[in-house]
Structures are given as structure tokens and as C-alpha cells.
């Protein structure tokens, strides 16, 4: 059952992403991307990352995409004219993206068993339950402390320093964006 739902949303994601890259105008591209993000949020839920799904909707689709929309409307680009590159670029794209896809597609075949075997570098299959104990612990945590708590605990304990540094990063981004976008400094 879960799998069927997953595949539905996966198809949704792929379709919206394709429409995004093939859209004619910037506005439609942004909107299609928003749709992709929402589909992805659904998939996150299916993968057991409910909190991340919520944040995806709130922050990514809700704030970042809105920012994109503002900028698009600010630029006032006018009528949608196609801005695809020429056939040479299309050929190059097919080649490169194709190669990349083929290379990455090997990932489809991964199951926890195979991953465990590769990680443990053992010829026979290892038991992923013993190798990937952290996942099980996380699940228990999620049950015990709630979904949010399961993420917040490592965030504020193990990854506290990166968390604080991120705030400085955001400050720098704010200052940079303001300065760059001002008409007169």
C-alpha cells in the first residue's frame, strides 16, 4: 500500500519537475517547482520524516518559492518567450544528463541488505539490523519523544555548533542580499 502511494507521488514529482524545466516562462517554472516540492513533502512523510515534510512545505515551498515569485514579478519580464538554448545545447544536455542519470540510476537497486554488505565490505550479506542500529534507535526515539523531538535532540546536542554558525551564515546572506539589491548604496 505504502509503495503504491509512493509511486503515485513519485510520478507526480517527476512530471512536475519535467514541466518545470521545460516550461516557457520563469513564472511557470517557479510554480511547477512549488508543485514538485509539495510532492516531495508527501514522499518525506512516507519515508518517516514528518517533521522535515512540514518544514519543507513551510520554509521551502512557503518562503523560498515565494521569494522567487516576488523577484520574478519584480523583474516584470513581460510576455513569456521561450528561452531554451539551441539544438547544440540540447544535444550536450542529453549526453551529459543522460550519462549522469545512468551513473546515478545504479542507486535504484540498493536495498538495506546490499548497502549493509557494501558498508561492511563482507562477501556475504550482513544483517542491516545490527549494522544500521541507529535507524532503529531513531525510530524508538520518535515514538518516545515525538517526531519533532527526535530531530531536535541531535540538532541541539551533537550539531549545536553548526547550528549556531548557520545563524551567522544567514546574517551574512541578509546583509549581502540587501546590499546587492539596493539601488543606491
Amino acid at each position, binding site marked *: 500500500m505504502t509503495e503504491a502511494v509512493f509511486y503515485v507521488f*513519485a510520478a507526480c*514529482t*517527476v512530471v512536475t*519537475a*519535467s514541466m518545470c*524545466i521545460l516550461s516557457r516562462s*520563469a513564472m511557470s*517554472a517557479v510554480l511547477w*517547482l512549488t508543485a*514538485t516540492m509539495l510532492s*516531495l513533502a508527501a514522499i*518525506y512523510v512516507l*519515508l518517516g*520524516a514528518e517533521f*522535515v515534510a512540514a*518544514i519543507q512545505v513551510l*520554509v521551502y515551498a512557503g518562503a523560498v518559492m515565494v*521569494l*522567487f515569485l516576488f523577484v520574478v514579478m519584480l*523583474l516584470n519580464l513581460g510576455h513569456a518567450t521561450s*528561452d*531554451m*538554448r539551441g539544438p547544440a*545545447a540540447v544535444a*550536450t*544536455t542529453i549526453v*551529459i*544528463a543522460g550519462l549522469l*542519470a545512468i551513473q*546515478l*540510476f545504479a*542507486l*535504484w537497486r*540498493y*536495498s*538495506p*541488505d546490499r*548497502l549493509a554488505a557494501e558498508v561492511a565490505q563482507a562477501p556475504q550479506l550482513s*544483517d*542491516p539490523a545490527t549494522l*544500521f542500529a*541507529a*535507524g*532503529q534507535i*531513531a525510530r524508538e526515539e520518535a515514538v518516545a519523544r515525538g517526531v519533532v523531538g527526535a*530531530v531536535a535532540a*541531535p*540538532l541541539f546536542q551533537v*550539531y549545536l555548533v*553548526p547550528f549556531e554558525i*548557520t545563524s551567522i*551564515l*544567514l546574517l*551574512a*546572506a541578509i546583509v*549581502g*542580499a*540587501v546590499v*546587492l*539589491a539596493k539601488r543606491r548604496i
Partner: protein
Amino acid sequence: MTGGMAPLLGPALGLSAILFSLGVAGVLLRRNAIVLFVCIELMLNAVNLTFVALAQLHGASGQVMVFFVMTVAAAEAAVGLAIILAIFRHKQSVDLQNINLLRG
């Protein structure tokens, strides 16, 4: 049963690969700077999906990673769009074909 641990690992990773490649294709195909950014965001989302898929096995670190990625993506989007705004004010166009001041 090992499959119960992370039932959708394979397909999720595959989907992530597809999305990443689509994002790369979009970056190569489009001339509009904003659409380029959108495709980059698509790539970042694909990576987020990978992290979440593997978080089932490796614990909450994966989801924490997604946080950071999202934060950085937001910051980058802000600054990048500001740059595009500044360029637009100069050139009245966001067509990347025309932005070649760094030509050597």
C-alpha cells in the same frame, strides 16, 4: 525482516537520481537566470530526498542534514536573486547569453 527497516530505500534513491539529472538538464538547457536558479533548487531537493531516504538507516542525522541544506539553499537563493536583480538593472535582461563580461 530487513526489508522492513527501510522498505522504500531503493526507489527513493532512484527517484532522487532522476530528479538530480532533471535538474542538471534544466541548468544546461535554460537561458533565463531565474529558471537556472529554479533548476538548482530542484537539484538541492533531490539531495534532500537522498538524505531523508538514508536517514531511515542512519538515524536522525540525515534529517538534521536536510535542515542545514534547506537553510543554506534559502540563503543562497536570497543572495543569488539579489545579484540577478542588480544585473537586470544594468542590462535590462536576464538572458545568460548576454552576460559575458568575464570573457577572456
